[in-house]
């Protein structure tokens, strides 16, 4: 168990990580492919949003609002391209989530599993709320906000984040 305090007190304590270009491209791409492929065989897998988890991971690890925002925007736009809906829905939602997660990553410790669960679950709700608002109000898509389903999905994504972030931690390099 780490003795690191939950809330950072100064920027000097923050450890910023970076990733190689191959990892930066390959990990989001694999997340998108797995997200598109696995629900064919395991339908329940669709409740997870791997591109979202990758966005959050890169955002909180790099701890740069600009990087988090751009990562979210690019992953979201690519994810939009695979759907049949207007391009930009996931883009906007993930931009906000990436920006928010990186902002939070600057302030709190996101290395321990409990924080990862809370941060990912919380930002999943934000992501879904932004998506819902944009889809409903700008595009006029008839959607219902399903509380139980969304909360359950947030929890599951949070749990998945603990595992996934643990795997992805191996690829990060200290600056």
């Amino acid at each position: 168990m780490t003795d690191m305090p939950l809330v950072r007190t100064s920027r000097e304590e923050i450890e910023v990580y970076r990733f190689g270009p191959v990892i930066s491209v390959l990990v989001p791409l694999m997340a998108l492919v797995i997200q598109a492929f696995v629900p064919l065989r395991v339908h329940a897998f669709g409740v997870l949003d791997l591109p979202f988890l990758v966005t959050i991971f890169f955002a909180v690890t790099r701890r740069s609002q600009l990087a988090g925002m751009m990562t979210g925007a690019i992953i979201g736009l690519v994810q939009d391209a695979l759907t049949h809906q207007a391009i930009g829905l996931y883009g906007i939602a993930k931009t906000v989530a990436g920006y928010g997660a990186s902002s939070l990553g600057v302030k709190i410790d996101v290395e321990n599993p409990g924080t990862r669960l809370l941060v990912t679950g919380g930002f999943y709700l934000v992501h879904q709320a932004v998506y819902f608002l944009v889809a409903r109000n700008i595009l006029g898509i008839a959607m219902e906000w399903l509380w139980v389903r969304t909360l359950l999905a947030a929890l599951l994504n949070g749990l998945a984040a603990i595992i996934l972030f643990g795997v992805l931690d191996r690829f990060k390099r200290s600056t």
Partner: protein
Amino acid sequence: MENFFSRYRNATLLVLVLFAQVLGLAVQVKRPDTSGTRLIRFWVVNAVTPIEKALVKTSQSVRGVWGNYFYLRGVRHENRDLKAQVERLRIEQVRLSEDAAQARRLQVLLGFKEQFVSQTLAAQVIGTSGSDLSHVVYIDKGSTDGLKPDMAVITADGIVGKVLRVFHNSSQVLLINDPSSGVGAILESSRLQGILQGTAAGETLLKYVMSDEKVPTGERVLTSGGDRIFPKGLPIGTVQQTNPGGDLFLNIRVKPAANLSRLEEVLVVTKVDETTPQQKLAESSGPVRAADILAERLPSVPPKPAAAASSAASVQPTAGKPASATPATGTSAASGQTGGVAGTTKPAANAAPSSAPSARVTPETTASKAAAKPSGASTPATASGTGQSSAAAAKPATAKPVATKPPASDGQKTKQIDSAGQPAKPAAAPPQTAPSEDLSR
């Protein structure tokens, strides 16, 4: 001002990026050529689908090696069962093909136009959108295989969706459970029409059926052909639940016949023909009976009186069932009516198919009153036996009784041949207890 931007540089950038994307959304929504594929979509699909194809092929290869070379437990027993099943199906096929042939002949006599799937292309499902809110799948066939937008996608169980976007080597298929999907649907027995739409939760609802109608649970829902995408008569699913909607219409939840969450192979309908069965008969390689040719050339003959028809029917040899040698009077009359109509209307229908309403009403009566089960013991004279006197003579004793499901009144109510060109399943016809007053119509 400069301080403000330098201080809130990231927040400003966030606002700018969001603004750009919102602007992009707005442009997409307002653009008139929404059918065009955007470049980003084109790039992403072309980048992702090859990986998905490779994954699908790898998993298929692994499963193939395992299933074909290692996991062979029980194969011999299964082979024996399958052989027995093939024998049974062969016998059934003979019976059904006879039914289908007869149905086609009756359709010819009524100038019945039908849509049928004449060409399909098998495709492998290689991916999904990856989003619960966008119910689309990707298939491994694209424009190089001749696919175009708005082609119907089906499985052996039922319809799946339609081709939405076509790329070089892959296509995007919009599933019927997506909220933006719409399929013209008709309830099989009540013939009520509606529109099948998906929901955000992935359910399928049949809409626009008036709330004062009775829709029983379990009733089959078929395509109506009204959307000009899906040929008429393909299975969509069954009614799962019916609730009164908020407005004048019922809220009917339909369980899709095809398992939309576990799609592997699908068929893309690349060609739908609308022809009369006459053309089909002419094109068919099988021998054409003299009776059929004669029936087409016969001039108009006035409808036979019921009594005469009845007597004609009673002379007709029964369909290989000695027990059915005693036809009910009503049935005979009904058969006679069908035959009379057949003889009368065929030339008229040829001349002007749409101007034969009376011809199309009578078979409806026959259909509802005298539809006979092929194997039913109480199935007496055949339609061909009464209407086409020469046909009756030419028809062998093993001929099937009245078509299992005669053509319906509007020329579109009944689909005798299914989409794959196979004979339709015999409908469970009611027992022939038609009162004589109906039959005399």
